[in-house]
């Protein structure tokens, strides 16, 4: 693994238990992502894109192969070690935003900073919200905001700790076209300004085209064209 490799997957596999028996989601994925790179993960529904992203973030444990981030073997880390790793190195954005419903926008953004023990977590969180144009929404609960606003809060939450890796799972999937475009601008802007590595799951070809590299998944495997490109 070269020094600037930030994510490295070697024959990563994921099998989950379903009602009708085990289901193979990832069937041996090997790839590496370099520092500062923007990678678009594309493929048909059910191809395993989101699962791959979750495995990269340590949110799902690979059932086979090896997954490492920043040189740490995620498979060897316990649940709490993974949580500690994410709080400093990773930001995750979801299609359904996943804000904590019982916290205001400001509290949601401040939470990972607090967990990381950052001084002035709330000051940083407020700045992050300001950057997203949400200064007037700091004290609002998620249920009081529009989908676009909620996603901007989620983005601020993911970016505020200045993580080395940003993982985004169809962040515009629940948003209308213009709102989604604005969110993507913000996301790429974050990547550009902070030099974070961005892995983006998307169905939209134009979004994928904005990424430095596109990886295609089909039925839990990397598509041949991509393997060829690699």
């Amino acid at each position, binding site marked *: 693994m070269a020094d600037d490799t930030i994510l490295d997957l070697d024959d990563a596999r994921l099998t989950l238990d379903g009602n009708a028996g085990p289901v193979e989601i990832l069937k041996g994925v090997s790839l590496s992502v370099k520092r500062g790179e923007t990678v678009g993960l594309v493929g048909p529904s059910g191809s395993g894109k989101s699962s791959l992203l*979750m495995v990269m*973030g340590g949110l799902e444990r690979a059932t086979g192969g090896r997954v490492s981030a920043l040189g740490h073997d995620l498979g060897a880390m316990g649940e709490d070690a993974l*949580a500690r790793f994410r709080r400093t190195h990773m930001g995750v954005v979801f299609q*359904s935003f996943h804000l904590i*419903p019982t916290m205001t926008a400001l509290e949601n953004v401040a939470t990972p900073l607090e*967990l990381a023990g950052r001084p002035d977590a709330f000051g940083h969180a407020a700045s992050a919200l300001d950057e997203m144009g949400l200064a007037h929404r700091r004290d609002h609960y998620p249920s009081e905001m529009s989908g676009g606003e909620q996603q901007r809060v989620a983005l601020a939450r993911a970016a505020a700790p200045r993580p080395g890796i940003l993982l985004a799972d169809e962040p515009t999937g629940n948003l209308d076209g213009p709102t989604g475009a604005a969110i993507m601008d913000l996301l790429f802007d974050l990547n550009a300004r902070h030099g974070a590595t961005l892995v983006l799951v998307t169905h939209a070809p134009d979004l994928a085209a904005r990424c430095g590299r596109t990886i295609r998944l089909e039925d839990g495997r990397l598509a041949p064209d991509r393997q060829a490109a690699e």
Partner: protein
Amino acid sequence: MSAARRIAAREIRAGFRNGLRGFRVFLVCLALGIAAIAAVGSVREAITEGLTREGAALLGGDASVEFTYRSAEPAERAALDALGRVSEIVEFRSMVTVPRTEGEADRALTEVKGVDGDYPLYGDLVLDPPGPLGEALAGSPPGAAMDPVLADRLGLSAGDTFRLGTKTFRLAARIETEPDEAGGFDLGPRTLVRTADLDGAGLLEPGTIYETEYRIALLPGADLDAAEARLAAALPDTGYRWRDAREGAPGLQRFVDRLSAFLVLVGLAGLAVGGVGVASAVRAHMVDKTATVATLKTLGAEGRTIFAVFALQIGAVTVLALALGLLLGAALPLAAAPLLADRLPVPAAIGIYPAALGQAALYGTLAAALFTLWPLAKAQDIRAAALFREAGSLPPGLPRPAFLVATGALLAALVGAATLLSGIPLLTLYTAGGLLAAFAALLATAWGVRRLARRAARLPALRGRTAIRTALGSVGGPGGEAASVVLSLGLGLTVLAAIGQIEANLRSAIERDLPQVAPSYFMVDIQPDQIDAIRALTDDPEVESVEAAPMLRGILSEIDGRDATEVAGDHWVLRGDRGVTYSAEPPPDTTITAGEWWPPGYDGPNLISFAAEEAQELGLSLGDTLTLNILGRDIEGEIASFREVDFSTAGIGFVMAMNPAALQDAPHTWIATIYADEAAEARILRDVAERFPNVTAISVRDAIDRVSQILSGVAAAVTYGAAATLVTGAVVLVGAAAAGTRARVYEAAILKTVGASRATILASFALRWAILGLAAGLVAAVAGAAGAWGVTRFVMETDYVFAPASALAVIGGGIVLTLVAGLAFAWGPLAARPARILRARD
């Protein structure tokens, strides 16, 4: 079949296929509440039936006629004999004396029952060794049968001798079963002898307190009403008391009725607690069904169709809960029959009583309707647009006015039914009011706690303390569990707190307050020629004081020439006979509240001084004429004064006192209270008993112990009832904890995603439960204390003292219960993998 019914049928089927998962708390809460009420009602019916069936045996005859402190005159006896076979019973208290060596003797209080050769007319007296009573009591010295407790206490075996008064008896047998013993309040265990053998014992002298009862086995085919009328015509104005087998043990029946009514009230409180669980379950169910409702609306269903669909579904579950509850309520007494038979003082006819079950079903149905109406009404306001939003709650605001009216009507029906059926209407209304007030206080507290938590979560001092902040955010934020947890736990704890406070007050009233002022001995049956010697006991340096008063027993039969019970109803002063005294001067430290005491040497028309509080309750005024039947003679007197009488000191207190000329020529005895050092009590008893064998000394300490014992039994019964409420509360709490699991799993998944460790998440969960438990416990302690104050002040009529230990136990219990319930459901959220949880929501 209407569309609503068809859709409802599909919903019901789906619910059953799902194992009624969302309805388990609903089922348990409702079924438990109904079962508790049905079980209490069934036991009450069983006792009533047992008393009715065994009425004649308990009474000792088809009818019983009682003369106070005298036997029937020959003419009266003839009138009784004309009704059927008659058996004469004499009962009084006395001292059993067992002489030991060197003038020493052991003594114990006993309730002596003198019987004739016809006893018992009904039922079987079982003796140990077995044998006919006649044989046991025959011989010289005359035989006696004794309660085994008393025989053991005195170390008496068959053949040993003892004294009653001045006469010697031989213990012939121990009493295993006494058919006409209904377990009333007796200070002394039984000694059974032939009445004729009491001659010469000096115990049945004129004025002595004793009861003579004539039990009658009516002639075959005779009618009780006719017999009662016939005796009334034959013996007008003789002051006898008639009882018959239709109500064999009225005092016991009254006690059982009161206690079971109180337990039903506790059961209703349990149902209210369960109602919170029912409402939460239906609300959660309707939130789950938001998409279904929105889809149905999209497809053209009207609000009323939606209401009908889910009302039918909930109705089906209610029917199931009713069936389960009634089954359990009917089965419990049957299963516990052997245990109950041992504990109950009467033979209870345990069985299935439709009336008791019907009452429980009525309460259950009304409570189910009351608590499900609101969330059902709100569900029909769900809009089709809800499909496009994440639905976490029902639409805000109040339901439509028609539903508000219906809620009010259901509440009124439930309270009305309980008031009518409980037999203690005022206490029922107080309880209902108390529960509503507690409900309101808990809702207000939940609101307050949420506001406070929301503010506290934003305190700069808490920044950086993620566990505390997320806990406060969860309590204060939207969709939190504050209301359901505080309500469900708080209401159950309030009932427990109130009962705890009442019990503590009862105990302290008996154990702490009374002995400080109570005398050592209460001596009765002191003959007039002995009273000076008793008074002279004050010469003993260890005797602090002696109070004495003459005593006669009389029945207050008429007020201003009208039947007293017609004028003043069922007041305790009118129930049976009361002590009456006479005195030239008011007793020391007496406060006359109205009128005047008669002048010294007064010899005019009879005057009465009446206890002020009781006079007010009876509606008496100065100048009213009272008729007292004393020893079969009617004595009239005019009320000249009212005075304060404190019956709680265990000292001498008479409701009625008359001028000496009115009573002093009637045969009577004296009573005295002796205040002495505890260490000297045994010696004083020995001295008095040696010198005055006819005098009966009742140890006030023993009497208080006996009262405490009985009250402990009552308290235990009430505590069992309250435990059912707590179990319901715990089920509701567990339901609330379980219902919130999904939200917490989600929250934990997000927290893990942003880097929270499991310890941080667990600390946050624990803290939020502790906050809610503390809030519920605090309100319960305050509301319970308020309720207990009301009961102590207005029902028990004693001073209320806050019992901090009980309150602290309730608050601590609240915290522990919520923590246990909450943490029991913490494993799921802690163990869940964030990826799966979050993706399932996408």
